[in-house]
């Protein structure tokens, strides 16, 4: 039992001290944390005084595990970090290995990877949208979001062979060529998405209750966002340009037309709008690429056993939640000497205490929703 004594102390009767403050445990089993996040929050009435995250309930020590796995094997483990953008995690690792080996990835593989990345991003944001609305007490959007997400999952299943942990990327390219039906299915999805996207605004975005719940809460200034290392949509809601696809373009992102979504609101609603608009940008990228997939190999020729040269390699990739950094220290062997995943969730969580102070419990749930925390990503 983890921290049994501590939990008992905090929940024992005689709850309210002289200051009128008391603590409650949100999690590890709580509907709003969407996982096993444990927050000890200090309250005065309904007002939050302090939020203290306790992590580690789903820590698998992926970094240590990767030290004993070779460069082909370790990629699959990273699907289990941020399972909602599993494909992008794999992409980051493959990029890092390719950087070390100096492999040129064939153009077809690059396009396939980006297509899958953006599909993953849309799927992830759709799940977030549903879960976000559910945190605020509206259940229906969750099912509506899953309808669209399901068609992405089916595309993934057809081409990659799995719906969530795809393992579709190998160093040098992708594992298999695209399924012959891929283009047709993606176009069908785009049609469905365009037909249904206005419902998102009707059901949630335009709703007066929702707007009142989101506007002006969880204020995060641009300076704090940078200092706390907040990345991804959460930072862009504070008008911090942090899209790695623009700052340090990888693959062919520099040749694609898309906008970095920035909002100036700095509040939860701005972070919400960033994700909603980002979905449209991802759709834009998919539309540009879906008819222009170059012919050719889907994988570069690689050796059966990969050996990275001695040195350090770092890649930054934009996942659905923010900046994922993969830092490989190689001693020249077949396994990494040390590997570090700079996961976006970990840094985004660290800002929660800062933005939640002084707001209500209901707001805390909304803020956790807009930071889009995925617990295995935080714990790794």
């Amino acid at each position, binding site marked *: 039992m983890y921290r049994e004594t501590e939990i008992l102390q905090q929940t024992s009767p005689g709850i309210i001290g002289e200051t009128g403050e008391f603590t409650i445990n949100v999690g590890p089993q*709580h509907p709003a944390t969407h996982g096993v996040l444990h927050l000890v929050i200090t309250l005065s009435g309904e007002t939050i005084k302090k939020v203290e995250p306790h992590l580690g309930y789903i820590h698998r020590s992926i970094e240590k595990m990767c030290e004993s796995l070779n460069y082909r094997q370790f990629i699959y483990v990273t699907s289990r970090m941020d399972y909602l953008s599993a494909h992008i995690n794999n992409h980051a690792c493959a990029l890092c290995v390719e950087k070390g080996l100096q492999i040129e990835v064939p153009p077809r593989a690059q396009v396939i990877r980006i297509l899958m990345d953006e599909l993953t991003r849309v799927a992830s944001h759709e799940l977030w949208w549903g879960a976000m609305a559910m945190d605020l*007490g*509206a259940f*229906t959007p969750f099912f509506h979001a899953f309808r669209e997400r399901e068609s992405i999952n089916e595309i993934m299943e057809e081409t990659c062979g799995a719906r969530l942990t795809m393992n579709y990327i190998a160093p040098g390219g992708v594992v298999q060529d695209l399924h012959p039906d891929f283009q047709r299915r993606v176009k069908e999805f785009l049609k469905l998405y365009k037909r249904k996207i206005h419902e998102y605004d009707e059901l949630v975005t335009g709703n007066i209750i*929702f707007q*009142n719940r989101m506007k002006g809460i969880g204020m995060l200034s641009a300076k704090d966002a940078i200092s706390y290392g907040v990345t991804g949509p959460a930072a862009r809601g504070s008008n911090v340009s942090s899209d790695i696809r623009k700052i340090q373009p990888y693959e062919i992102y520099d040749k694609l037309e898309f906008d970095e979504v920035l909002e100036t609101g700095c509040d939860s609603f701005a972070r919400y709008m960033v994700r909603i608009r980002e979905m449209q940008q991802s759709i834009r990228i998919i539309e540009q690429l879906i008819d222009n997939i170059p012919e050719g190999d889907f994988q570069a020729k690689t050796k059966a056993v990969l050996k990275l040269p001695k040195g350090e390699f770092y890649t930054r990739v934009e996942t659905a939640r923010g900046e994922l950094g993969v830092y490989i220290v190689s001693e020249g062997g077949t396994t990494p000497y040390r590997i570090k995943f700079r996961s976006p969730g970990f840094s985004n969580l660290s800002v929660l205490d800062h933005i939640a102070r002084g707001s209500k*419990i209901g707001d805390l749930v909304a803020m956790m929703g807009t930071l889009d925390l995925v617990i295995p990503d935080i714990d790794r």
Partner: protein
Amino acid sequence: MWSLAHIANEIHQWLNNTFNPTWTLIIEMVLAGVAVIGLFAALGLVLVLMERRVAAWIQIRLGPNRVGPLGLLQSMADTLKLIVKEGLTPDGADKVMFNIAPFIAMIVAMLLMAPIAFAKDFQLWDLNIGVLYVTAVSSIMVISILMAGWSSNNKYSLMGAMRSGAQIVSYELSAGLSIMTIIVLTGSLQVSDIIQAQSNGWWIFKGHLPVWISFIIFIIAVTAETNRAPFDLAEAESELTAGFHTEYSGMKFALFFLAEYINVFIVCAIGATLFLGGWMPLHFGSNNAFNNAMDYIPSSVWFFGKTFFLIFLIMWFRWTFPRLRIDQLLNLEWKYLLPISMFNLLLATAMAILGWHF
């Protein structure tokens, strides 16, 4: 013509002929009690199923369809499950209060059944302050929630209960004021009088703007009073796990659950009585053929039809809207609903004095 009142009279006649008046009264009371409990059970089963179906269809799902034909026996199965489940009492709980609270919730719901006219001349107790009685008794509901929340010895429960207390007490004001509009127009607190006053048209049709406004406010206020989404802050499962009934399980939880649905039924029945004419059939001016056709539909069908329409409305709210925050909830009441309903009452009074309604 077949009607509930007719059956009631038949029973009354037969009892009077068979027993002396005292025994007749006692037997009739027992019968009424049994009927109310039976209605409770039936309503619980029907409303739970209805809620699940409404939710499912709105959420592009099918809903319960495995137990019995079309899933009609689903709520029976749920009840069976809840009955055989163990009802836990937490260690640190105040055991007496903890165990009494769900029963108080049920008793309040039962008491509220008394003045409701289910059909023409079919009413348990047509007391002359019927509407006042309903508003007064329904405020006791909050006590059961506070008891449940406090005695659970759980901070989530306590917070849910406190939220619920603040919420119900405030929303009772605007619910009361919107009911006042009808009372002003009718000039009586008696339920049968209010229904009779609508024989030439329901208030919603002949009351113009003030009644429409008060109808909207009434629906909002009773949604809040019954702790239904978007005002379900007492439960708020994404914030407070399950609010005041976090620690309840088994049949004690089922009683809370049932009381919630019965309360929804009652407030909708009151709404139907006050605004939609209770069991009064729909009549259009002097279109006699239409009016006669409407009269052929039994009055109980009219009553239940209107009530279930309002229940559907409340369920529709629940599955569409996100939840409010506690301060916004109180803002809505004190800054919007209360001033509007006060102004509206003034308007209605002026209208009643000047006789501007039909």
